[in-house]
């Protein structure tokens, strides 16, 4: 059975390590914060200038001066810090953020990502996405394996304008987990885990890119 969104983000949370500094994208990635294992300290960075983002505030704690990159009111945990945008992106561009978890519209078989514009539709801008995929040590994508119309999102090469080239390290979908591998100069995603009941054929049908299969294929535990 394919994973739920909650299970996808639960699986993504297994990638976290104690003391990690992490940036979570808007939408599904935000949910990863709900699954940080107990006893583990993970520092959430919000690129508008906060390291140590906490839960949403209680009604009487709401502060217009304290928001996240999605413009939602949030809180700050003990040990948090505020800083300006130049410092925030020095953290991101300078490789200090251990992991970013983002959504995607398309991913190419070499790890390019497109997630900021659809030609012909109103372009709203790119925000911090290009900086995150270019700068963060490890970029993980959580997404549905196919579009709402059932078309593959993992494809030979992106048809949408890119957000970044060869920058995605891992993909987690409702069907499987894939890791970017390099072998003899070629880079492809290798499927390492399958959702319970999902078959190799299910993944191949939903994917329009060359992918590799791990000899040690496991079931996703999430």
């Amino acid at each position: 059975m394919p994973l739920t969104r909650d299970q996808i983000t639960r699986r993504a949370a297994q990638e976290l390590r104690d003391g990690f500094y992490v940036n979570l994208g808007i939408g599904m990635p935000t949910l990863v914060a709900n699954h940080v294992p107990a006893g583990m300290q993970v520092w959430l960075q919000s690129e508008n200038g906060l390291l140590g983002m906490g839960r949403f505030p209680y009604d009487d704690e709401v502060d217009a001066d304290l928001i996240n990159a999605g413009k939602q009111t949030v809180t700050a945990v003990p040990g948090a810090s505020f800083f300006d945008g130049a410092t925030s992106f020095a953290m991101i561009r300078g490789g200090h953020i251990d992991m970013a978890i983002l959504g995607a519209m398309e991913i190419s078989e070499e790890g390019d990502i497109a997630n900021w514009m659809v030609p012909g539709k109103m372009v709203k801008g790119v925000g911090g996405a290009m900086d995150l995929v270019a700068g963060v040590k490890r970029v993980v994508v959580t997404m549905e394996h196919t579009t709402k119309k059932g078309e593959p999102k993992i494809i030979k090469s992106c048809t949408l304008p890119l957000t970044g080239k060869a920058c995605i390290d891992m993909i987690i979908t409702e069907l499987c987990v894939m890791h970017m591998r390099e072998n003899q100069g070629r880079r492809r995603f290798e499927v390492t885990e399958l959702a319970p009941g999902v078959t190799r054929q299910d993944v191949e049908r939903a994917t329009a890119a060359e992918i590799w299969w791990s000899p040690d294929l496991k079931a996703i535990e999430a």
Partner: protein
Amino acid sequence: MINKVYPSPQAALDGLIRDGITLMVGGFGLCGIPEKLILALRDSGAKNLTAISNNAGVDDWGLGLLLQTRQIRKMVSTYVGENDEFARQFLSGELEIEFVPQGTFAERIRAGGAGIPAFFTRTAVGTPLAEGKEHHDFEGHTYVMERWLKADVSLVKAWKADTVGNLVYRKTARNFNPMMAMAGRVTVAEVEEIVPAGYIDPDSVHTPGIFVDRIVRTVSVKRIEQRTTTPRA
């Protein structure tokens, strides 16, 4: 002695605003925007403005107000999603926009303030936003050259100022304000409190007074775009 404190937003902008100038306007969404200076800018009636600001406000607040009055000709921004009037003017071609990745946006503004005409970044390499720009390889990776951003006038929002222009920001209302204060030929700061010189700990100053020319105290509205809360158990 030079007096940096002005009695009203109108007075603080007096003599600075002309048609066709370039402004930087602080804020992330509606957080940390110089709200009353934006109103005074609207009331100035100046046209054909270029606005360098992370976002474009909403229809009836922030820079959205200057879109309603069609005073802005061009925006340099990272994300402009929350504004119907923006979309209409953009799609009709009335409004020009330059999209910049947010980290590049922050760094270009800092560069403008720091006397650095260009720098290199990996951000946007291989994407449409790097097309037509100079590229350079360093240590086996390709980088794109990005240019500084400067403004005729920067409008910033801080929490507290002293009378000689030192600024302290509050929480995430800091955002792009400190770099913009550096990159304006003239910088006007809207603040919630003004204290005498010496009342801000010199170790806690966020923006030294050298970057600030005029200060005005206002009462902030502070609209919230996404009020998200946790229910009390």
